[in-house]
């Protein structure tokens, strides 16, 4: 049944204690092909990739590389047959330069085993030249852009003669322009006969770059689609296994009085930003990555210093110099990185929920009322349907969507008036996203105001009352919910004139 595939995986099974991670999965890859692997979180993508890179060993099934059976017992075995993986955060040493990174652990050695840097530099240059890319190879790579670092990681794989490249969410930290240049490189790699397994949450990207798409769901293969048969709706349907419901829209809630007002705020890259959030309102900030949205949120929340401007709460000017000040005034930030900023991963769920307002579960001697705390945590677990075996579970063991619900609980427990959500739905699956939208919409029904920061325009359109597009640290354009369209927002994000 071989049809010239460079990689054939058939009947792959893998179980973890209590969980079937993969069941009878087939996957193949042709020379010079980009084959996308698609599925919700927990669908089995990572497990499949870890088997292919020798991190996990399969329970059953067969892997053939170039028609020959291969057994991987360690990552080394996979590398030896030319399989190499590149992740969202490439495994590079930031202080080393490009040449040093490319040959790290695989140095070309001259006489007496001394590394031959001249030879390595030449080889690195010719590698990049082959791909038609110019990057400085002699500066420490922390000076390079994220996409250039990805390219160094790819060059490193190629230097080890990788013929099968796995790209796992590599575009996550990249801007759309950087993505374009990365895709140009991918096409170049294809021409050279390199095969690529491509994993991404961004379906639009997959549509652009993949020749074939295999969808996984609950550890099983749902099907494989040719690029020409592909449309996003079909893909999503295959992923979630049911007809996609109506797109979610926020119910219109009557807007109350303004809660938070910001006037002429500057600091860092943020320049002269003014806006106002009312009770019941979801105010969105969108724009390209690096437009200053997160920076703005962190100034308002007291993480980064404010250089100019005023912040008013309920009409009165307030001074915010630390997150503590912000919390006192009822402002809550669900930060961009929930793993390092939003949650203490090694603490229990209940401890995380009450962390922002410990006073409320403590008596006047500063001792925590355990019973009250447990009741509080249980209430949030029920109300937000957080899937967890126990309120004492360490939050690092929860899925992304459930972790985000814990982050939300923290703000709700502190009875915040203003919620700032910074990219709350990154890295969580479609179902969890929808649940989260509903929770956000519920919040504003209770008179809270929301500042919603997102680069995903569809969700911005679905949820916002008003949309502010940021560009280069400034508010570039404001849209009401009625006037906003995908196209208008995109155009103004890029600063293209004539959007009116």
């Amino acid at each position, binding site marked *: 049944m071989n049809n010239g595939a460079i990689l054939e995986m058939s009947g792959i099974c893998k179980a973890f*204690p209590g969980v079937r991670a993969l069941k009878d999965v087939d996957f193949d890859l042709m020379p010079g092909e980009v084959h996308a692997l698609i599925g919700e979180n927990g669908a089995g993508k990572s497990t499949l990739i870890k088997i292919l890179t020798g991190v996990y060993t399969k329970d059953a099934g067969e892997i053939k590389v170039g028609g020959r059976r291969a057994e991987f017992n360690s990552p080394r075995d996979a590398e030896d047959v030319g399989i190499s993986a590149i992740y969202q955060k490439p495994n590079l040493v930031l202080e080393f330069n490009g040449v040093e990174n490319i040959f790290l652990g695989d140095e070309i050695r001259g006489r007496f085993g001394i590394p031959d840097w001249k030879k390595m530099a030449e080889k690195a240059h010719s590698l990049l030249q082959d791909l038609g890319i110019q990057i400085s190879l002699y500066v420490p790579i922390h000076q390079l852009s994220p996409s250039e670092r990805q390219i160094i990681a790819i060059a490193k794989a190629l230097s080890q003669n990788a013929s099968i490249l796995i790209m796992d969410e590599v575009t996550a930290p990249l801007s759309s322009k950087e993505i374009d240049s990365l895709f140009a490189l991918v096409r170049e790699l294809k021409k050279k006969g390199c095969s690529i397994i491509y994993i991404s949450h961004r379906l639009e990207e997959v549509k652009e770059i993949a020749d074939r798409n295999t969808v996984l769901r609950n550890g099983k293969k749902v099907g494989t689609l040719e690029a020409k048969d592909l449309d996003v709706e079909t893909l999503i349907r295959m992923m979630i296994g049911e007809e996609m419901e109506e797109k979610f829209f926020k119910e219109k809630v009557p807007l109350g009085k303004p809660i938070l007002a910001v006037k002429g705020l500057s600091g860092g890259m943020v320049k002269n930003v003014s806006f106002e959030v009312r009770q019941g309102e979801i105010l969105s900030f969108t724009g390209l990555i690096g437009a200053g949205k997160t920076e703005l949120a962190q100034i308002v929340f007291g993480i980064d210093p404010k250089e100019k401007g005023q912040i008013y709460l309920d009409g009165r000017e307030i001074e915010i110099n630390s997150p503590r000040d912000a919390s006192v005034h009822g402002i809550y930030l669900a930060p961009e990185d929930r793993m390092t900023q939003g949650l203490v991963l090694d603490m229990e769920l209940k401890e995380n929920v009450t962390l922002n307002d410990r006073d409320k579960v403590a008596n006047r001697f500063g001792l*925590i009322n355990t019973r009250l705390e447990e009741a509080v945590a249980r209430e949030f677990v029920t109300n937000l349907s957080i899937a967890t075996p126990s309120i004492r579970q360490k939050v690092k063991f929860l899925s992304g969507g459930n972790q985000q619900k814990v982050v939300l609980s923290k703000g709700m427990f502190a009875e915040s008036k203003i919620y700032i959500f910074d990219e709350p739905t990154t890295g969580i699956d479609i179902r969890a996203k929808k649940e989260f939208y509903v929770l956000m919409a519920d919040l504003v029904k209770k008179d809270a105001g929301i500042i919603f920061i997102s680069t995903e325009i569809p969700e911005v359109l679905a949820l916002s009352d008003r949309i502010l597009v940021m560009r280069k640290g400034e508010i570039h354009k404001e849209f009401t919910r009625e006037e906003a369209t995908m196209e208008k927002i995109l155009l103004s994000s890029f600063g293209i004139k004539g959007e009116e």
Partner: protein
Amino acid sequence: MSTKTDDIGFTRGLGNRKRYLFFAALAVIYIAFSVFVKGFFSWTALGNILVEISIPSLVSLGLTFVIISGNWDLSFGSVAGIASMTTCYVTSITGNMFLGILSGLMVALLAGIVNGAFVSYFGLSDVIITIGTGSIYFGLSYLYSGGYHIHENLGDSFGFLYAGSVGPFPVPTILLGAICLGAYITFNRAKIGRAFYSTGLARTAAIFSGVNTEFCKMLAFVICGLLAGIGGILTASENKSAWVLIGQDYLLTDYAIVFLGWAIFDKPSVIGTLVGAFFLGTISTGFVMAGVPFYVRNLGTGALLLIAITIGAERQES
């Protein structure tokens, strides 16, 4: 959902069983000493162990505060030294023991504040800072006597601190019990305990959650300094004299104790530190009763520290 474990290396998947492994080891050691060392299996010996471990336990508890809030302190040994020297110097000059103890504690407090301020408010490296401050405290403690023992005019009651007892309970044990209780409540019931743990486990997340992490770090160093000071004063009381080398052997013992506790209970904790101290105290008392020379004890303690770190303590992510 997949079950994940954080264990790495050759203890992968051992999980909670690690704890039982350590307790089994403790039992084996205890039985072995009981069989081979005459008089080890007795209430007297057990009582000796409890008194023996009171000073290391106290000092380790202080260190536990610093470690839980995510820092290292390498200076507490010298803080113990300078506190004991100050106490004895002031006592012998004024003849007032309470004034002496108060001065000693003030010096220990001050040392803790200096450590804490440098590390938390100036954001400097804890390891380097406390190596530096430690040698300063050590150097300063020479000033009182030029390095000679201070033992004159301390008064009889000074020895009572370590050797005395109230009812059936030795004073150091009472002190340890009280401080343990306080520390236990702090970490397990008080809201400041959450602040300590979150500061150590995920400082960024703690800051975003409105925790005053600088204050926590500061407070941890101050408590560590104070408890080291108390340890030093008790050591001086035990010997009825102070000299500059008091505390210089604390470092190994107390790190071994904290890490042993960390290994057994998967995180640094009050109970862990106590169990670690008992573990180490059993071995060292057994060795003493068996007449093993001191350097062999050091060797054993060092080995135990390595074992604890290797098998037990979760490795920190970079």
